[in-house]
């Protein structure tokens, strides 16, 4: 072989999961020996209600190509209504991301109960396949590459804007 094989792209996926449902679902997948792609990094939180949108922003900043937010099915919340509050928050947060032009296809939401090890396996498989097909989230990751003073020139920014866009 004269040329080295190009490295195939492996997406980094960060899953923010609820301690009471999805985390146990992942655990069940493990004890049942259900294999799922190792691209996912699981971060356990007490409740989907605890998952601050800043965590998602942070995830993309540090190089995530896709993010999963997962918790208890509606009505099953350990704290009664944490997931209902979270659902409202995500409804509006998604519209903000769309306005900003952030790729919402990279942010996934699911309900996975403690009994759904199989669903956890499927979801991670699907998300990984989607993320692999989409490629690296270079747009957001690129933000971290630019340092102070290197940003595109202010004049260039001013020219792109039409005054009437302000309102």
């Amino acid at each position, binding site marked *: 072989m004269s040329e080295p094989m190009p490295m195939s792209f492996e997406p980094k996926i960060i899953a923010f999961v609820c301690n009471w449902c999805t985390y146990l679902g992942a655990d069940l997948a493990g004890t049942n020996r259900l294999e799922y792609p190792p691209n996912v990094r699981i971060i356990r939180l007490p409740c989907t209600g605890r998952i601050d949108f800043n965590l998602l922003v*942070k995830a993309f900043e540090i190089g995530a190509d896709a993010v999963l937010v997962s918790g208890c099915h509606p009505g099953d919340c350990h704290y009664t209504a944490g997931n209902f509050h979270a659902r409202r928050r995500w409804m509006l947060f998604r519209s903000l991301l769309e306005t900003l032009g952030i790729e919402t296809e990279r942010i996934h939401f699911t309900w996975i109960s403690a009994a759904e090890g199989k669903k956890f396996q499927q979801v991670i498989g699907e998300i990984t396949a989607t993320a692999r097909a989409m490629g690296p989230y270079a747009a957001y990751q690129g933000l971290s590459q630019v340092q102070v003073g290197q940003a595109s020139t202010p004049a260039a*920014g001013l020219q792109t804007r039409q005054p009437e866009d302000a309102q």
Partner: protein
Amino acid sequence: MTERLRQTAARLLSEGKVQLVIGYGAAGRPALITKAEDAEKLEWNDRCLANLAVYLTRKEVKALGKAAIVVKGCDERALVVLEKESQIDRGALYVIGMACDGVGAPKCGRCQVHTPRFADEVIGTQAEPPAPPAGPNGLDRLMAKSSAERWAFWNAEFARCVKCYACRQVCPLCYCERCIADKNRPVVIDTSATPKGNFAWHITRAFHLAARCVGCGECTRACPAGIPLGLLNQSLAQATEAHFGYRPGMDRQAEPVFGAWSPADKEDFIG
């Protein structure tokens, strides 16, 4: 109207009903009046753009005693939200409402509340409300672009941000004593004015105002870099109305969106 405003302020102060009148002074600058004879300094003209509700939650203003505040219909919406969030005691506040035909700001074309509705006293009468401008507004034009174009647009806009936080300081609903942007253990929002830090900040600022922002447009007006920050708030306001039929600051009784939930909330995006 200016004369009546001055008389009202002087009366309230001399009767001891309030210790402070928050109004507009020369050139529309904010004026904090504590003596009846200073009521002459108050003005009412088309330069009275600022939303004075921002001062009500400031410690140093609270320390001056019971306040009266001069509001336009649009500013009053902020009072409604502040009251809902237990930031002001409406009973301990005297609201002087100004019937307003518009103060020449771009937002005035979209104004829905020209006359304050919950004021203790309304000064003046409002002429026929002007017809809303036809055609797409700035947000419509932005949303008509592709996702990649919007990303490029905000990249160019945020590139000018110097993180002065004027947008935060001027906002009547950004009243946290310690802002998440100032927290450093851990650093939630990169403090430098780099693209990463700017995106993190503007996402946070806009979303902390989701379903709360009353659209006073002060953030856009205060921004020294001319970033149309109000577009982010407008888009969230549009989504809030579409999903929940809720317009912040319009209804004193309505339950705030994030203070409540419903089993019927949409979840077409959840797998």
